[in-house]
């Protein structure tokens, strides 16, 4: 399996970027332009599919590099923040009752997404701020 490490990593990164970009577009479309398409069934299903690919690739990478959440701090942070991101995203697109609240959740979700990205780049729980130590 190690033989496919680079390809799997590329798939994982590609899925992360696609997932984030789609969330950004959906959030903007829904909250700034009041568009209906972000909640269309095909768009939602594409989002689920990308996230499933992302998850599968992440599990494969974990097994290849032998680093796991609750054993390695940066992965623990990623996992916890992922849950936070999902909850914030759900409120940003669906559950928050007012547009203002949705925008707030949307911005918070993007911030969390960005932080997760830097944690992954740095392999450090402080992510962007790891250089400060």
């Amino acid at each position: 399996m190690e033989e496919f490490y680079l390809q799997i990593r590329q798939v994982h990164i590609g899925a992360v970027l696609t997932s984030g970009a789609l969330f950004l577009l959906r959030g903007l479309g829904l909250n700034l332009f009041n568009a209906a398409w972000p909640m269309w069934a095909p768009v939602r299903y594409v989002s689920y599919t990308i996230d499933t690919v992302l998850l599968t690739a992440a599990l494969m990478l974990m097994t290849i590099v032998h680093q796991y959440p609750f054993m390695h701090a940066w992965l623990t942070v990623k996992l916890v923040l992922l849950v936070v991101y999902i909850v914030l995203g759900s409120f940003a697109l669906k559950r928050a009752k007012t547009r203002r609240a949705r925008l707030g959740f949307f911005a918070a979700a993007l911030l969390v997404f960005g932080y997760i990205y830097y944690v992954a780049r740095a392999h450090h729980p402080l992510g962007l701020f790891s250089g400060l130590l």
Partner: protein
Amino acid sequence: MNSAKQLWILLIVLLVSSFAVLLWSGREIEIAKPPVPERVISESGQTIYTRAEIERGRVVWQSIGGQQLGSIWGHGGLVAPDWSADWLHREVIAILDQWAEAEYGAPWSELNEEQQNGLQGRLRARVRQNTYDPETGTITLPDERANAIRTVSTHYEGLFGADPAFHELREGYAMRNDTIPDAENRRLLGAFFWWTAWAAVTERPGDTITYTNNWPSEPLVGNRPPASMFLWSAFSVTFLLAGIALLGWHYARTHSQKEEPHDLPKVDPMRSVVVTPSMIATGKYFWVVLALFLVQILLGALTAHYQVEGQLVYGYEMAEIFPYSITRTWHTQLAVLWIATAWLGTGLYMAPAISGKEPKFQALGVNVLWVCLLIIVVGSFAGQWLAVMQRLNLDQNFWWGHQGWEYADMGRFWQWFLFIGLMIWLILVGRALLPALRANTESRSIIALFFLSAVAIGLFYGAALMWNEHTHLSIVEYWRWWLVHLWVEGFFEVFATAVIAFLFTRLGLLPVKTATVAVLFATIVFMAGGVLGTLHHLYFAGSPTPVLALGASFSALEVVPLAYIGFEAYDQWRLSGATPWMRRYKWPVMFFLAVAFWNLVGAGLFGFLINPPLSLYYMQGLNLTPLHGHTALFGVYGMLGIGLVLFCLRGMKPDLVWHEGLLKTSFWCFNIGLAGMALLTLLPLGVLQLLAAINNGYWFARSEQFMQQPFVDLLIWMRVPGDTIFAIGALTFGLFVAGLWLLPKREPPEPEELTRTRP
């Protein structure tokens, strides 16, 4: 004589004759089975193994999970090798190496083709020769073979122990370290493995095929499919086509006859059914179904993950607590247990609903049986864990530990307890149904069939009690398939057909007479292939050619009704829209439609893919087997179990609004997840293994070399998407059921119901 009476007579004649032939086949297997020798000696007079050692070795093998860790004669788990094929290959390589070193001074693999062919020719002649002496019960082997046995035995003793040199191989086979801590037990395990390999390579007296009908494929010893396998495979396809043509003619004739129009009820008739205390008491059965189902999925994920990390689960040393053989045991056992519990609960719910009578202490009986089921699950699982972790004395293993027979793994005590539980269930269902059976109504025939299938479910579990600790392997397999095939694939099918038809008659959507004839006819068609179809599981388990022929022919007929399952599905779909109130039953009916779909794909197509003897010769124990297993067991019986649970819940809580979104998500996740699991991993991996088995021999398709290839790893990982989607389906179904109790939302009464008085 009316047509229902004619069909009853036909059914009785069919069952009597089919079971007579099945019992006769058992006798043929008893006569033709490979002998267990009293002694195995070398030509120089050294004793290699004794009967007691071979039998004790089998007990050791059973105690570590038996068929749940690797397989024997192709029956069992898929990650570790088939031990018979693996032993055979290693033994013949060891013999060839001895000859090559003696004659050419190099190992066999380094000889040129001509030299290799010469040694192979000698090997075939010697190793296939049957040297068993029935007078003395002795097998005499050449000295070089005795040496080879010692070499292979040393390998297995290291593998099943804690030798670090074998650590990587153990990981590849998903075995825990020190699987068998006792050194003598490890040696005895080898005795049993050797005997199964001996049966696979030794020709029957006076014949040129081995006791296992030349299974497994092993080019080095000339194990290739015998002529009878080609012949009966071709005939099985012919019988299938003939059966399809015959049933097609029947459908064309009967479907052109217009049904008499009948008035459909204006309101749901099931809403007028009085929900008795015992019917309410069945609610907890459905909670247990849900709990067992969720645990089963979790164990399935663990079991699948062991294929990747061997002993770890995302870095955690899980194999030290729950090794592969225990997670697989529980995964397979829970599949049967939760589905069975769903059906038992359905029987207990339906019986008073049918008769309209609640016998005295019925609710008490339902509650007692429920407690018994919990004790059986917890007790048998605890015993199995103790056995696999080798914390149980071997002498206690058969009664309290792990029997090692796939789907019949629980200790004998627990099997008896379950059998008694089923008898209690039968009594409870029977006494509640009795008033309806006595009443001379039009429904009596269909109720009788429902009751008879319940009797069969109760009694036929008794097949699991037909073998003992040292019963011959071929005979254990014969009875085990009575249990797995006849119980699960036979009588549950009749039970389900009768229940679904009966439900539609109770809903007033089907005239009773039409339903009765349809159910009786369907039962005859199912049982015509189903009873003797049992034998197709026994092609390579020491059965003679006539048994193989019967198995091939009749199991092909099992597929015939599945070819026309579209008729049944269409009728159910049509009935689901027959009245406005049928929308209340949309999701039970959708699950029944899924049953029809997976019956065609999982049982019919994937089942027939591996069914003819020639196909199964190469495919048995490859990933094409679980392709059929998962899609048929969950696709058909699992979906049916869920459909029946939903139907009962609708009746038990008639006034609640159902969360359609959860059910819709659950339904599609189950189907898409199952399809993903089948098409992304099991089918492609099975096909790759098949090509490897045909080109290089069966041992190679199951070997660590093959299974640890990067591409195979990648295919195993492809299970994650399907499994994840499937698990989401189970969780949403769980949320739906929990919501009925925890967050019930009542629906407003319909106008007709405002004026209706409930009886």
